[in-house]
């Protein structure tokens, strides 16, 4: 070709013609050759030890923890140990915090308010409403989280948790999820907000969204006490005293297992419908085992997980406390807002095998599952007008004796069906506001936040409705 006749037009035309000849995947090939070249340079510069050690400790441990015979029992034993340490270890500091913040500090603060001459309603709003709700959340939430998170982080740091994901991946694969969802789900048993943050380890967009949306089905720390209390009062009471503990424990475990089943079911449904088009990749690195750095782990898990979650919970508990107190104290024609709401929701609640009090408690206690039971108790006293229990309108409380509590619930019209459905609804309802906010922060999407919030409520309503009708049908026949 001669130079004087070459114009930009010609060059463009040549380029256009050549474009069809380079093949459809030249971008891929280019990228691949760049990676390959980079790998070649790296290989030339890095020297690796000539011979493998005769005894490879990592592989030996791996063979044990991923073996057919020992893999699953070992995993169950370790998780049970972590849960047992959390529950047993949190008992004492929880009681101590509750004594300090609720029984001791609260009357002092209220007395102080009277001394400096605050009007009764400001005093009530501040110390019976906002302070009490926040203190309650802290005393129930802080100790288990301060134990559970460091333990969990230690296992993670040691390198064991990726092996759990490796063992369980096949189960999660079948429902379109990632093996690491086992980890975020376990974290969710501690706190759903932390569980949602923990899904960051899943680097595939579709599987991560599934893990975020289904995390709420892991029964969190704030809901365990509700489950245990109701199971003890109503289900344990069905059998002789020496079997009561076993039966109520089994029913709580059954609810937790049901939650895991629901999370598999929902994962399966989501991956086949709304999330079908999201990008999905899988990779799971099994890092070498290393001795955990204990102090660093405790420090980061306390700062990163416990304190952040606690701080968010406090921010949401403060206004919730105010709303609870105000709703019970602002009255129109002698009837408080709370009572209006309860009367309004009661027919729907009864249809679902619950009652208006429970529905209202779940609405005002969206900020924290920890305060559902104290709110239910307070509202029950408000509605039934029971005397001798409680600390006044809008003041949450809990009773020490089981007999007193059963009596109060029965005065509120509770049956065994109410108890069972309360346990189911406690498992299947919207995540607390801390978790909702965290989901929004993690997904940056209103759509997924709404789906993760409304899907469990809808399922809870459907399940309790179904159970209530079938229960009544059977009870009618018997």
């Amino acid at each position, binding site marked *: 070709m001669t130079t004087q006749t070459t114009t930009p037009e010609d060059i463009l035309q040549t380029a256009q013609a050549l474009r069809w000849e380079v093949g459809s*995947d030249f*971008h*891929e090939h280019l990228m691949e050759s760049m990676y390959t070249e980079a*790998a070649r340079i790296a290989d030339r510069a890095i020297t690796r030890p000539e011979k493998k050690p005769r005894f490879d400790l990592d592989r030996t441990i791996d063979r044990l923890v991923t073996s057919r015979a020992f893999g699953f029992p070992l995993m169950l034993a370790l998780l049970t140990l972590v849960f047992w340490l959390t529950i047993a270890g949190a008992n004492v500091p929880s009681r101590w915090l509750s004594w300090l913040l609720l029984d001791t500090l609260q009357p002092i603060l209220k007395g102080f308010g009277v001394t400096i001459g605050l009007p009764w309603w400001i005093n009530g709003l501040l110390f019976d409403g906002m302070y009490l709700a926040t203190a309650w959340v802290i005393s129930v939430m802080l100790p288990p989280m301060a134990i559970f998170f460091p333990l969990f982080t230690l296992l993670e740091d040691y390198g064991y948790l990726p092996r759990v994901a490796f063992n369980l991946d096949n189960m999660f694969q079948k429902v379109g999820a990632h093996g690491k969802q086992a980890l975020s789900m376990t974290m969710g048993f501690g706190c759903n907000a932390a569980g949602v943050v923990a899904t960051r380890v899943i680097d595939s967009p579709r599987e991560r969204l599934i893990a975020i949306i289904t995390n709420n089905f892991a029964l969190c720390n704030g809901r365990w006490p509700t489950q245990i209390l109701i199971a003890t009062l109503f289900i344990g009471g069905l059998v002789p005293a020496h079997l009561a503990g076993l039966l109520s424990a089994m029913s709580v475990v059954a609810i937790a297992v049901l939650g895991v089943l629901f999370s598999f079911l929902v994962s399966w449904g989501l991956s086949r419908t709304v999330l079908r088009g999201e990008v999905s*990749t899988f990779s799971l*690195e099994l890092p070498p085992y290393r001795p955990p750095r204990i102090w660093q782990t405790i420090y980061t898990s306390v700062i990163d997980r416990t304190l952040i979650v606690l701080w968010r919970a406090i921010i949401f508990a403060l206004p919730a406390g105010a709303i609870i107190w105000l709703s019970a104290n602002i009255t129109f024609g002698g009837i408080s807002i709370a009572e209006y709401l309860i009367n309004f929701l009661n027919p729907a609640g009864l*249809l679902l095998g619950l009652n208006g009090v429970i529905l209202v408690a779940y609405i005002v206690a969206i900020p924290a599952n920890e305060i559902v039971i104290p709110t239910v108790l307070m509202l029950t006293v408000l509605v039934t007008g029971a005397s001798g229990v409680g600390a006044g309108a809008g003041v949450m409380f809990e009773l020490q004796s089981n007999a007193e509590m059963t009596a109060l619930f029965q005065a509120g019209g509770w049956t065994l069906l109410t108890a069972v459905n309360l346990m189911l609804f406690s498992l299947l309802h919207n995540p607390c506001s801390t978790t909702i906010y965290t989901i929004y922060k993690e997904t940056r999407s209103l759509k997924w936040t709404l789906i993760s919030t409304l899907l469990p409520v809808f399922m809870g309503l459907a399940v309790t409705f179904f159970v209530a*009708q079938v229960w*009544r*049908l059977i009870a009618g026949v018997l």
Partner: protein
Amino acid sequence: MPNPLISLLVAFAITLLAVWFFRPERGLFWRWQRSRRMTERVFEEDALKHIHQCEIHDRRPTVKSLAGSLNLSLDEIASLLEKLEARQLVAVDGANFHLTASGRAYALQIIRAHRLWERYLADATGFGEAEWHGQADLYEHELSPAEISRLAAQLGNPTHDPHGDPIPTARGEIVYRERIPLSSLEANKPARIVHIEDEPEAVYAQLVAEGLHVGMTVRVTESSSQRIRFWSGGDEHTLAPLIAANVGLELLPEEPREQDQLGERLTSLAPGEQGRVIGLTPRLRGAERRRLMDLGILPGTLIQNTMNSPSGNPAAYSVRGALIALRSAQADQIRILRENDES
């Protein structure tokens, strides 16, 4: 308290209604949404596409073939053609009709949108092969020219759609490659898949189920009028000639280059065995392919199956000093040459 039996029945009825309305794909709501999209413009554009297809395949478009392709009555097609003629997109001459220059340019833009959207679905989303064509049939009518250019730029101005069909450029240029149908390839000649016809759907579904993909190397072992037997992607496949005809090939040089060797799948390694990576199959695309390359699974890399999980899937492989778990579906897409123990 309402009678529990009645409330159960009412709830059941509501659920049935909801399913009827919102069942994925077939629910009334989705059907209504789809039919709302079926505007006059969609029919016009589909008609142009059909006439263009006929011209490429040297067939004469007729009112009947149009009616069959668009699922309309003959009268409706007649009025549709009248409109197209009025807009000078189609020239009608008695019973014959053909595209005008502007009609052809219009048709090429629709085809461009269709094939770009298929490329997008293949590279940047998680939708499976079976859904590409149907979705592109909807979106080709909804993308504006500006959106099409932006999509093309974002995808790196691809030349071919995932089935191997060329994508017309913004100026309407298009070049079709010569290709040999798999049914007429001689035995033992190395070749590469450059095209897989995506219609009819049932045939395409069978080819997808065989795991065939544009870019894979093929070697035929037996070719008769009853069946075609060939190796591809580390497996032996058998297809009826009628179906194999939907796979288009280009010949490779007699001595295949390293990356065109057939090799085995990574999953064929038992724990403890190792191999050297030849490459990733063309089926792995987008994020999935990049992830594996990020992990260092590249041509020439030594890879060893180190252990299986209790269920056998995923398995853990040692690559460049790291231990990485891969699912069988992924490991199936990595081709290797088996190597004996390091000696």
